[in-house]
């Protein structure tokens, strides 16, 4: 039955994809135990949807193959015409082992400005959660001659430690620049993930 075959091949997609994402010249032999500091960087070690990651861009300025590394804040309508800071993204576009890969990590809270940093947020499923809670969605996109990867992976548990979130507020209280830095340890089914990042912010979005 062709329909069944298609369904099975979808379920099995990670098994035949060009899965591993390994940067050249890696020096860390184990995942970091804490945030790696203010120098712009992205380290992702572990698995996401079964795909192995050993991505060590410990100094983005010298990392090979990077087309774009940018953070973005998203604001949602608050009370009385204000905006609340409900979401930020860490996005990387880079050629890794000859494959153009786009990775995006998105975190949500009811209002990140409500918390003094550093702050630790427990990862859970609820969108835009209040208090010291957040959620994480990892988006992976790349294609090879043999396969396409297009994953949106949520449902993580663990911790986001937000260490820095800088920038200049405009008259509406929106911050279009600065840096966001943090450290993540997370699990999801058989996946384990450790991530450290400090990303420059170049834009914000209003979700009106």
């Amino acid at each position: 039955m062709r329909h069944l075959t298609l369904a099975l091949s979808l379920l099995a997609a990670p098994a035949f994809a060009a899965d591993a994402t390994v940067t050249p010249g890696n020096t860390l032999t184990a995942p970091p135990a804490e945030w790696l500091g203010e120098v712009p960087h992205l380290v992702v070690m572990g698995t996401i949807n079964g795909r192995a990651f050993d991505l060590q861009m410990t100094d983005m300025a010298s990392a090979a193959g990077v087309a774009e590394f940018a953070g973005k804040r998203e604001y949602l309508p608050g009370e009385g015409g204000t905006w609340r800071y409900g979401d930020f993204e860490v996005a990387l576009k880079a050629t890794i082992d000859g494959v153009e890969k786009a990775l995006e990590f998105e975190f949500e809270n009811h209002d990140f400005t409500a918390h003094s940093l550093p702050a630790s947020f427990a990862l859970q499923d609820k969108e835009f959660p209040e208090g010291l809670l957040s959620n994480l969605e990892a988006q992976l996109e790349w294609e090879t001659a043999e396969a396409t990867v297009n994953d949106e992976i949520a449902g993580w548990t663990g911790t986001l430690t937000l260490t820095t979130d800088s920038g200049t507020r405009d008259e509406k209280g929106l911050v279009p620049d600065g840096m966001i830095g943090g450290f993540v340890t997370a699990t999801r089914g058989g996946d384990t993930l450790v991530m450290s990042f400090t990303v420059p912010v170049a834009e914000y979005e209003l979700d009106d």
Partner: protein
Amino acid sequence: MNSTIKALALCLLATPVIADPLALKVTAVAETEGTSGDADDPAIWVNPADPAKSLILGADKEAGLFAYDLTGKQVAFLPDGRLNNVDLRPFTLGGRAVTLVGSSRRDDGAMVFHVIEPDGTIRQATPFAHPAASAEVPGTTHIYGFAMAQDAGGTYALVNFKSGHVLQYRITENDGQLALTLVRHWKVATQPEGMFADDAGGHIYVGEEDAGIWRYPLSPDAAPEPFVVDAIPSACLPRDDVEGLALHDDGRARWLVASAQGVDRAALYRLRGEDKPDCVAMVEVAEGVFDRVTETDGLDATATPLGPAFPQGLLVMMDDQNAGFTTGFKLMNWADIAAGLPK
């Protein structure tokens, strides 16, 4: 489960078992120059004087409207805002036969219109922008999909919103000036986007991204009673989203082409009057001279022969992943697809 999805699911359960769709694999014969913005929806303008010099219009929801020739070379760019969907119809403007091109613009919630002259030059219509929302229809939020339609009663703009509303406007002109009048509206339960009008068949098709495809009568005088074409999950739409919708009609067979984004394919449904369309084939655009089509968004098709490269017409599909982290559109020779379809 909301009521629409439940209704779709119940209809699906009640549908007789039909043959599984054919799995067709073709390759692109051309691709457009990539955009670093976010390509979304194409429309094909057939050059009446020389079909081989037809154009692909491509909406970029971060930039504006691109025009490409049939080799994929960019021939024009109109930086007219965050255009989401685009469609076109022949139109008489100021007594002259032109093509009217409409788009949904996210910046200001407007429908905007361009004019293609018979020689292929593109300019803004006047007035250029028209509000998509109407005071007669409360609750519309976030303009999204767009299509055009035509019947004996006139030419129409169809616009939908993330809130699920679909508004149908009649387009008229006076001495070259466009005017739009709301003639009908309805609502689907969840976010729609892709739409197209089968003018000859008298139907409007609306894709509800996470739920399936609906069909409505085109005439604004008819009640917008929905008819379920397909519901997610199905053989042709195994998972969401359903995105762009188009028609390929060569006079012998009529095909509804639907973008099955969740599986990177175009689903083909045979249209036979008022019957429920049969899902016949799933088209994969595989790696060839050009890379594969992935996460396709909008699409368009024509059965008009467009020169030796496209003797039975053309399928254009948005492609989300291109070299240099760009997006763009792939062009497929419909003859390659037709070779695998039942006669």
